[in-house]
């Protein structure tokens, strides 16, 4: 029997995030016949209270004797927890959206970092946008606190793009304005290119404001994965005429592959609603734990050996297409899909845009590292509080 602890997150912008992850996880357990598991959940709020997180992780290991802890946290918190898990010989599965880069890519023997690779996806979007030469960055105050901004800009510039203008919107919605950005767009000779990073209601606000501008001044929008989140469609379909929206994203619920159909079907049957991207994260976590349980049994309950074996094994059949454990980093990665939005925010995958994901992932790790051994940003965002 696998004993699983979960440090579940809270979010203001996405209030159901913890439930969605756990529901996805449970649907996955049922699908993969992992019925013999015990779940122990601990709420860690926004994932920033370090003493609370450490104490709860310690309780899960010492008190509940879990084999695995799924920790919805970022790499800074993970660094704090890793010695505890190494000493206990237990798996720490760091689970997040991948909107921040790790401080380094060194693998830790008892840690797997499982994310939806948002930084990787935005880096690909940055490369895509660079073909158009110049552009402006538009981000919410909130989204600008994540490394996705760094990855989209870095790749854009590495591929020859040049940023001419930066527009960061205010934290409060009542102060939201695109007026300065509109002035910049009007000053451009050709069609302006905008690299856009907004999430949740800020994404909807941005799209609506931009659609009004686009009536007069068209722009090419290269957007972050959260701007391709399908839940946005309900607020946008009826009112907005958007143009030229595209970006890379790890997943859409409408994927027709068999793995995704199984996921969507199982989730709908269990929850009575379609899964969102957080539920996918839970489902894929179950998939990984299924593989881990098998590997653990095959390696005499040695967690480090089980993780090593997972890194040498074949990719796993995810709704994303597949996912792999990169043995050089112990990070999970998977495909990135170029998605375009129609005028009424109907999302379609560009089928003719297949990338060599292994090569892109390697290049991403090697070329878009955060500056190391320097003073690091004091931002504490974890993408859990979105």
């Amino acid at each position, binding site marked *: 029997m696998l004993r699983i602890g979960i440090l579940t997150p809270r979010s203001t912008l996405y209030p159901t995030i913890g439930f969605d992850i756990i529901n996805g996880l449970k649907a996955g357990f049922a699908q993969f016949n992992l019925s013999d598991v015990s779940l122990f959940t601990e709420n860690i709020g926004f994932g920033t209270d370090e*003493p609370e997180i*450490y104490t709860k992780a*310690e309780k899960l290991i010492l008190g509940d004797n879990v084999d695995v802890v799924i920790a919805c946290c970022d790499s800074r918190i993970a660094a704090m927890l890793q010695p*505890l898990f*190494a000493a206990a010989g237990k798996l720490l599965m760091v689970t997040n959206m991948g909107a921040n880069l790790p401080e*380094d890519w060194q693998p830790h023997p008892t840690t797997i970092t499982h994310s939806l690779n948002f930084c990787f996806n935005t880096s690909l979007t940055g490369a895509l946008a660079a073909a158009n030469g110049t552009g402006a960055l538009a981000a919410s105050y909130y989204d600008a606190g994540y490394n996705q901004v760094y990855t989209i800009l870095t790749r854009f510039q590495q591929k020859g793009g040049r940023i001419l203008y930066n527009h960061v919107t205010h934290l409060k919605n009542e102060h939201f304005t695109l007026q300065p950005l509109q002035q910049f767009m009007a000053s451009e000779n050709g069609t302006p290119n905008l690299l856009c990073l907004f999430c949740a209601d800020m994404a909807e606000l941005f799209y609506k404001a931009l659609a009004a501008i686009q009536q007069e001044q068209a722009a090419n929008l290269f957007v972050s994965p959260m701007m391709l989140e399908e839940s946005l469609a309900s607020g946008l379909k009826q009112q907005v005429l958007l143009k030229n929206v595209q970006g890379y994203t790890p997943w859409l619920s409408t994927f027709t592959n068999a793995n995704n159909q199984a996921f969507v079907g199982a989730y709908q049957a269990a929850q009575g609603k379609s899964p969102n991207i957080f539920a996918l994260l839970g489902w894929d976590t179950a998939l990984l734990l299924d593989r881990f349980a098998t590997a653990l049994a095959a390696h005499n309950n040695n967690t480090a050996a089980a993780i090593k074996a997972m890194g040498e094994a074949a990719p796993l059949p995810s709704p994303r297409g597949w996912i792999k454990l990169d043995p050089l980093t112990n990070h999970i990665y998977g495909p990135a899909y170029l998605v375009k939005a129609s005028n009424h925010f109907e999302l379609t995958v560009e089928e003719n845009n297949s990338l060599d994901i292994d090569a892109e992932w390697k290049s991403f790790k090697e070329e878009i590292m955060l500056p*190391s*051994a*320097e003073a690091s940003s004091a931002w504490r965002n974890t993408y859990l509080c979105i």
Partner: protein
Amino acid sequence: MSDLKAIILCNNPIALPGIKEFLFYGKVGALVTTSKNAEMQALLAQLAAGTGVPILHVDKKNFVAELKSAIDKYQITVGLIMTFPFILPKNILELPEKGFINFHYGLLPQCRGPQPILWHILNNNPEGGITLHRLDDGIDTGPIVLQEKLPIGATDTYGMLQSKLAHLGAKSAATLLKILSFGSFIPSTPQDETKAAYYKNPTAQQLTINWQTMDSHQIIRTVNACNPWNKAAGSSISNWFLGITEVEISNIAASETDKSGTIMVIDKENGLLVKTKDDKILKINIIYLQEGFLSGWRLAEFGIKVGDCFA
């Protein structure tokens, strides 16, 4: 974090970023360095200025008594060793409630001993790192609390690696501070003795280039391992012992017929080019002589010419 108070023992500037982390959070009860190390004394005084943290200067004869007194006087709960030349007796180790933790600026258990940075470079290891371990009565043998690794680049000198490790030490110190503050115990893992190796201080021979047995990569590593603390790696030519401080691979093709160590070119325009055992050409950029640090080609001013051979 309210009850934690550390006594930090150090003797090298590599410790400073790590000490800063603890000072920032007000978790330092006392700083200790040796009475002979004026540089460290000055650096610590500067670092701790305005904090009220006492700085003790100790020697081999009095350090045990001084430590015992300080642990009691400043209500120390943990001891941190960040490079310290004296071995602590066992009866000291248990005095702070959380014991002592050593910052070893190398990877354990495979690189024990006093000069891990040097040996990681000399041994051609692809990565170095920092290991924090609990102090026991052996040398670098205690159970590991945490370890951080970093790659060693082809052009990394000892000094460059030391700087990187100093910053990595700050990151490790920050993590340790959290563990000490939030945890009910200090998690640690015993070292794998089957992978353990101990390296003493190097001999002069180990820091001397043998052009007949070393390939280009080994020569570069030896030179880098000595820069800057030893000024240069030793080398001899025409019964003259000199130092090589900086060297790089040249993209010029080597002739197979020339003997290893042969000077192929020596002039201002092209520099000092020397053939190696693996048929590469090394460009010696900087040499160290009694007369000073000079560009490699200036050996010509001392009578060295094309065709002469390094031993």
